[in-house]
């Protein structure tokens, strides 16, 4: 079965409920997990915190429909593993609140990973796409094998996909551990990849309501390092880039069954329109595969 992680589980909760009813047939053979970064938690990352609240009722609904829910704790500098909001959220998705064992956390901090593994061991841990370095000069095999040892699921950086695919096809990586982001917002050539996420991490750590307090910085954060030659304006250049069908098929053939659809900053209408397209695409792959086999 294909597992699909979809962004906006809290922010677009009402929309999702309607959407699920409308597309019942489309999602029936898929294992859906929603994710979001709620409650202005200091551990959140990936995007600037906005005031959205995860409630017990939401988790209960996700449980009833057998959906998973993942917390996006992707801040790369976790200052306080005892954070009350963070721990409250972990309790909301674990224990009796996780009867189907589908809930988890998306993260990239090693300190937080160790803490959650020890205290909330049932939660599935996904290595976030935001945790990768800006540079792509890596020993890819060693880098991803180390992540495989630590995480249940790993989302590779978009620019790593050709190399990861090559290693998967060569049998050097474990396909069951990988989650492929179908629609990435980040430009693969962006020189400020981890820097952008570090800025978001800082805002989420240092402000209670960063979205409301600094609305002008909410979407795109300017990074303007000063060099000996003087300040250079760096601006994160974000684009929407969908992965090709043929490439998805190749990932599937290596055993990859986890896919992710980002909802980052998508308008509701866009979200509603794009989601069925992506899911249809993913289902096609499985149908093709069953015909061939």
């Amino acid at each position, binding site marked *: 079965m294909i597992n699909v992680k979809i962004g906006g589980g809290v922010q677009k909760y009402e929309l999702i409920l309607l959407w699920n009813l409308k597309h019942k047939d489309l999602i029936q053979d898929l294992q859906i997990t929603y994710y979001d970064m709620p409650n202005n938690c200091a551990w959140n990352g990936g995007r600037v915190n906005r005031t959205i609240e995860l409630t017990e009722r939401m988790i209960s609904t996700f449980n009833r429909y057998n959906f998973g829910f993942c917390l996006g704790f992707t801040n790369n*500098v976790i*200052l306080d593993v*005892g*954070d009350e909001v963070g721990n409250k959220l972990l309790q909301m998705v674990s224990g009796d609140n996780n009867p189907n064992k589908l809930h988890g956390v998306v993260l990239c901090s090693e300190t937080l990973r160790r803490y959650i593994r020890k205290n909330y061991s049932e939660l599935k841990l996904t290595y976030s796409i935001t945790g990768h370095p800006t540079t792509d000069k890596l020993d890819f095999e060693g880098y991803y094998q180390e992540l495989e040892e630590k995480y249940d699921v790993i989302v590779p950086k978009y620019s790593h996909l050709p190399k990861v695919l090559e290693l998967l096809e060569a049998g050097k990586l474990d396909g069951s551990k990988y989650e492929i982001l179908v629609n990435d917002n980040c430009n693969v050539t962006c020189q400020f990849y981890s820097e952008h996420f*570090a800025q978001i991490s800082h805002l989420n750590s*240092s402000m209670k309501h960063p979205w409301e307090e600094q609305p002008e910085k909410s979407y795109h954060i300017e*990074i303007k390092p000063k060099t000996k030659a003087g300040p250079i304006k760096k601006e994160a250049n974000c684009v929407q880039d969908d992965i090709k069908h043929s490439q998805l098929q190749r990932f599937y053939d290596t055993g990859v069954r986890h896919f992710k659809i980002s909802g980052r900053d998508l308008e509701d209408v866009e979200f509603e329109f794009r989601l069925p397209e992506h899911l249809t695409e993913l289902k096609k792959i499985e149908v093709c595969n069953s015909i061939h086999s």
Partner: protein
Amino acid sequence: MKFAIVFTVEKSQGDMEKMSVLLSTSIRQHMPNVDVYCGLFTQNYLSDSIVKHLNQLNVNLVVDQQFEAATPPFNVFLRAYTKYYFSNLLLGQYDYLIYLDVDTLLLKSLSFDFDPTDKIILVDQMPDWVKSFEGTYTKMPSSNVYYSWIDIINKHNKYLYDLDYTSKEVQYGKNSDFIISKMIDESPLQKIQQTIGAYHCLHPLTLDSQVIHYDDFGKDGSLINLKKTHPDTYNRYDLLLKRVLGVININKEGLWESRMKQYS
């Protein structure tokens, strides 16, 4: 084994940026050839004169990010980010890194009687009197509580960078310190009790001390212990403070000395 020293500074708090010149001067005095990196990660860029001093002392200024310093937990974030940033940037190029708070002074060359690349972590155990003092503000655990102002960052412990206990009333990050202390106790890391330096009041300085850690000039005791134990060194830095950096060092017993007397 190759190592580098890393620290961070910004022009936001009183004489903080001037402390970086003192730190760098002390590094160069005892370790003329070691690579030193100073992270400049905020919009509060250093004064030109400070940049000039650091350049003369052959400190690599690494300018990146330009975080906007705003709220109280920022210093905690900045220190943690500095360790995160340099461990990602420099480990590999160096076998290990030594992180120093900007308000430290080297009294001699840094050397260790243990393998700094092994599964180790430097810890400084919280003394009983601090626990008593802190206990008046918050519930203290009965287990160990560690803090650290000098970290050896190697591939084994590079993630435990948020251990930073500062013992002041209601502190941001307190829960983290308790939990991280517990994680260290339960980890395979060998704990090395910090013996290479001296917190200005917790561990009285001796002639063998390699490092002194002081707080803001004139407020919390500053260099008072240094004057008693290393008068020549003290005179040299006092001169640098007065004549070059324009800082008057008020050598009085500070907050921590008074708290120690009260709670010991």
